[in-house]
């Protein structure tokens, strides 16, 4: 079994996938308990909108059909509805209602000697061309249309992009990110691991330190450590973190050839050096904020994998920074990596819990206070509905205003308790649970 993916050949991938299914008896893809989900543009998920009215008629003399269609294509081309077929059985699409009046159109057709129906039918058709098979099927029910099927997009939609071997790698690297999150000094437990997928090698492995420095989100730290692996970087490397030392990061000539094309003579060393995060994957325990998402754009990351969405996330939740058309770099994003494996009753990552498991005991005690409990349960907007204990977890509703409400609700006893715990600085707003 090959251990390195170094070809983009789809056939080979398919073959390998089949092989994985049949003969892999070690840790295999079937052990994977989580589901990968690509974060795609909104338009891909949109349902078909019949937003354009068109005139439709049929010919009384069917033998005139081909001349009629030819005439329409020349006199009334409809570039906006290029994806729609002109003919639906015996019905013919004439023109968009807004473009021409029914009388003018009829007059013109009659003057050309076509025998059209008394009154034109008005049909509402979709103006957007279908992007996915689902949209195609839906649009086809309204009026026959064509689709340039994007097989890769279809696989992205079903989450079937990677073979079993790759999925195991994603799991391995996300596990590293989870470990990084756990060891971090910050109250918010986030981890980031940057990987060179061609060499199957970790380039940097970073934990979060935002309590001490507002910019040191795990992603930002990981990016700076990548720079450090290229003899750059601006921040000193914490002894909790790791980066590939510049000496070892220069790829061996054999691999380099495959990876970065031909190099000749003395230029080889220079042109073979990595540039920013080009060609790299990053694994994050949770969806990055807008700052980190944009930092990944600047760094030209190839793919981002994250475990859970977050309330202030910018790669799916609040925005899709990786898909902004105005930017000079776009990348693929996948969520859900390793997500279910660590969930208990709710979808919460283990790493996120470290800072709050100890305060849960008090939260439970507080909730047992009947008055408080009733008050919370009766609230129609249910701002604290998430505040219940699941085994030993404290769950909070994923919204911004809830954080402040929770912190006042859990006020002093929790705070004093947290101050005494080494994992947390007593600031409950920092206990941002990953959902």
């Amino acid at each position, binding site marked *: 079994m090959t251990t390195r993916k170094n070809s983009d050949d789809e056939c080979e991938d398919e073959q390998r996938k089949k092989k994985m299914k049949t003969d892999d008896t070690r840790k295999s893809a079937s052990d994977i308990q989580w589901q990968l989900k690509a974060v795609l543009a909104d338009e891909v998920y949109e349902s078909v909108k019949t937003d354009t009215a068109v005139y439709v008629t049929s010919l009384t003399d069917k033998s005139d059909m081909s001349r009629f269609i030819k005439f329409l294509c020349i006199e009334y081309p409809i570039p906006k509805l290029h994806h729609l077929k002109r003919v639906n059985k015996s019905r013919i699409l004439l023109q968009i209602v807004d473009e021409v009046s029914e009388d003018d159109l009829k007059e013109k057709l009659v003057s050309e000697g076509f025998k059209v129906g008394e009154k034109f039918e008005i049909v509402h058709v979709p103006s957007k061309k279908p992007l996915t098979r689902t949209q195609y099927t839906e649009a086809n029910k309204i009026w026959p249309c064509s689709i340039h099927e994007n097989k890769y997009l279809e696989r992205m939609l079903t989450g079937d992009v990677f073979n079993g071997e790759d999925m195991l790698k994603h799991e391995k690297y996300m596990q590293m990110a989870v470990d990084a999150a756990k060891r971090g000094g910050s109250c918010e437990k986030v981890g980031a691991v940057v990987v060179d997928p061609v060499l199957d090698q970790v380039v940097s492995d970073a934990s979060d330190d935002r309590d001490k420095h*507002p910019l040191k989100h795990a992603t930002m730290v990981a990016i700076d450590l990548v720079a450090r692996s290229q003899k750059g970087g601006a921040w000193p490397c914490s002894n909790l973190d790791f980066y590939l030392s510049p000496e070892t990061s220069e790829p061996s000539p054999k691999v380099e050839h495959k990876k970065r094309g031909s190099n000749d003579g003395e230029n080889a060393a220079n042109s073979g050096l990595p540039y920013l995060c080009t060609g790299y994957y990053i694994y994050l325990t949770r969806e990055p904020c807008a700052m980190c998402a944009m930092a990944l754009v600047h760094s030209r990351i190839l793919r981002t994998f994250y475990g859970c969405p977050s309330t202030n996330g910018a790669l799916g939740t609040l925005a899709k920074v990786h898909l*902004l058309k105005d930017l000079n770099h776009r990348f693929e994003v996948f969520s859900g990596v390793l997500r279910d494996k660590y969930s208990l009753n709710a979808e919460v990552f283990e790493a996120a819990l470290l800072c709050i498991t100890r305060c849960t005991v008090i939260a439970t005690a507080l909730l047992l206070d009947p008055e408080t409990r009733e008050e919370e349960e009766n609230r129609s907007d249910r701002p604290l509905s998430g505040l219940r204990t699941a085994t030993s977890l404290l769950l909070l509703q994923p919204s911004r205003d809830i954080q402040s409400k929770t912190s006042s609700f859990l006020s002093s006893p929790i705070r004093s308790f947290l101050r005494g715990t080494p994992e947390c600085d007593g600031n409950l707003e920092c206990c941002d649970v990953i959902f």
Partner: protein
Amino acid sequence: MEKWMRVALTRAKCALDSGEVPVGCLFIYRDEIIAEGSNIVNETKNATRHAEINCIDEIVAKYRDWRSVFKETHVVVTVEPCIMCASALHNLEIAGITYGCANDRFGGCHSVLDASRFYPKPCPVFSGVFGDEAMNLLKEFYKQTNPNAPENKVKVKKVAA
């Protein structure tokens, strides 16, 4: 504000001379410059080392109570902060941002995306102070080519697929 913007422009010119994207930035706290920065992306090989980021670093190192310092600090920058920097500044609940010219490529205040909507306490943003001067510096920079950019984008994509 014009006084500060002149200083920032001088800083941007220096960046241009050292081959970095010409952006200059000042952090003003109680009518004093407490941090001054320009891009050092090429020097650090880190594409996130924008002028604003460097200034934030400087202040965090200088002030123990940086959280409260930021809340009273006004940021003066020659070019509209990118989405990353704008997000960082709104998150710090900075007192305000004033910039010179818009940034059509990465702008995080209005050009590409408005990052203020992601944050509960966004700061006010002002623009147009010596915008032409800042824009001219940028134009001068983009006339040159970026020696560090990857040679062939198609090749990079092929590896990824």
